[in-house]
């Protein structure tokens, strides 16, 4: 039987603002944003990047997803603020005295700026994730000449995150069913992590050999170029944006190395 065309769900094209932008172009833009968040001085870097990312996310209707990523980062955000507020080396402008502790204005300022950089960095990457199907990204990387092993590592790593979380949930349920107490105060919860970490980590490691053999059984190591069932669009605007982002990225690094950014 001859197939005249592939099913629509295979050749589907993403639609909507930014979601239809070429995945490689989005990666280049995200790379520029990440570098800008850290290389531009003071508040300029994180402010520019956060404004750009939030505006893009709003138009692409991905603000809610971005907020979820922001919430997930809240533990690290809190710890950065606390450490800098109380322990910034050389800070001598206390806000108040709390016994032996003295939070400082410069610690607060530096902590907030570090948090802004971190949020700018993570939201730039999160936006790519939220607006790009992973198989589109892999297909585009393959089209751009990235090797099949590298592409598999990227794809498997991204896809393994939700699967590992799912497995951790199953193991946690099994441990609870055997009487392990995972509720209550912090230390009790922390104690519950150890018996969870073992099965998750060792389970993943023992699966590696079977996964490797399963891949070999599907001709993964065949020589030559792999067939792509769907090639993401790479229109003129995508190509212009891609090269503009790369040029801006190189220029930013160059200016920074020349010491012109303070």
């Amino acid at each position, binding site marked *: 039987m*001859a197939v005249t065309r592939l099913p629509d769900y295979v050749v589907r094209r993403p639609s909507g603002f930014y979601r239809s932008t070429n995945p490689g172009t989005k990666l280049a833009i995200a790379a520029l944003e990440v570098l800008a968040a850290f290389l531009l001085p003071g508040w300029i870097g994180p402010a520019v990047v956060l404004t750009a990312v939030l505006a893009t996310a709003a138009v692409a209707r991905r603000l809610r997803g971005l907020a979820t990523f922001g919430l997930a980062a809240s533990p690290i955000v809190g710890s950065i603020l606390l450490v800098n507020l109380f322990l910034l080396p050389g800070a001598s402008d206390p806000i108040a005295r709390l016994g032996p502790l003295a939070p400082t204005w410069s610690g607060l300022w530096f902590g907030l700026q570090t948090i802004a950089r971190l949020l700018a960095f993570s939201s730039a990457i999160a936006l790519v994730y939220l607006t790009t199907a992973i198989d589109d990204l892999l297909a585009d990387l393959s089209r751009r000449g990235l090797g099949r092993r590298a592409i598999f590592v990227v794809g498997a790593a991204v896809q393994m995150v939700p699967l590992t979380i799912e497995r951790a949930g199953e193991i946690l349920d099994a441990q609870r069913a055997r009487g392990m107490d995972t509720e209550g105060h912090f230390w009790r919860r922390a104690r519950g992590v150890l018996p969870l970490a073992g099965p998750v980590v060792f389970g993943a490691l023992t699966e590696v050999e079977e996964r490797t053999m399963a891949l070999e059984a599907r001709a993964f190591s065949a020589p030559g170029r792999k067939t792509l069932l769907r090639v993401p669009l790479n229109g003129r605007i995508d190509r212009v944006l891609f090269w503009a982002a790369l040029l801006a990225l190189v220029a930013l690094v160059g200016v920074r190395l020349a010491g012109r950014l303070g």
Partner: protein
Amino acid sequence: MAIELSAVRYRYAGASVFALRSIDLRLEPGRVVGVAGANEAGKSTVCLVASGLAPGVVGGLLEGSVRIDGVETATLRPHELAQRCGLLFQNAATQVSNTTATVFEEVGFGPCNLGLPVSEVGNRAWWALRAVGIEKLAARDPARLSGGEGQLVALASVLALRPKYLILDEPTSELDPAGTSLVADALGRVARETGAGILLVEHKTDVLAQIANEVVVLERGAVALAGAAAPTLADPRLAELGVEPPAAVRLERMVRAAGLEWTAAVAEAIE
């Protein structure tokens, strides 16, 4: 034309004991050979050796001869072996490539690896999905399937490489009765419709009774029993080898032990 294992001994890398001590086995196209045995009998090792993945991919020491259609497996590269002999593992979850969004693309993963034209990949994917009877799953996310469905997708994925032989390592071991029935029916269909030779390692002897032409029972890395499926699965030595006979055989024994008559009509009704 066959997969032939002659006087095969195999030892895993780092192991001091041979996992396979003496194996002679022949699998011809269009035939289903079942392999049974207790734990550590060497069933999974037979699969790896017969498919050429051991020692080719997993290492170890092989003695004797393993040939696919007259060609020593040691001389073939993994992707060449994959096109001659498909291998299916126990766990459906570890066989998903994790790089595709739909079952159709997952089944096409192997042909894509070979660099075949898009139209040929599409043809093979549809053919394999139909052969296994899962066309209706084609648009689904392969990571969100039940165990039985996942195993059928893995089977179709291997079939899409159009191998002449299939080696299946306990494909129903992690499935419930419904999933087992789903996979057993699909295997029967594949055996009938593709003409592939199937080596089926299975501890559920009811599945072997349903689709195998011959059965080989292993014990500590050697062949302990071999022959046509029905008499081998009814052999009284089966239980001593750690293999439970099929339900029909057990029922017949219970009926006879109770002094009742076991007629052909009863046997037919049970089947």
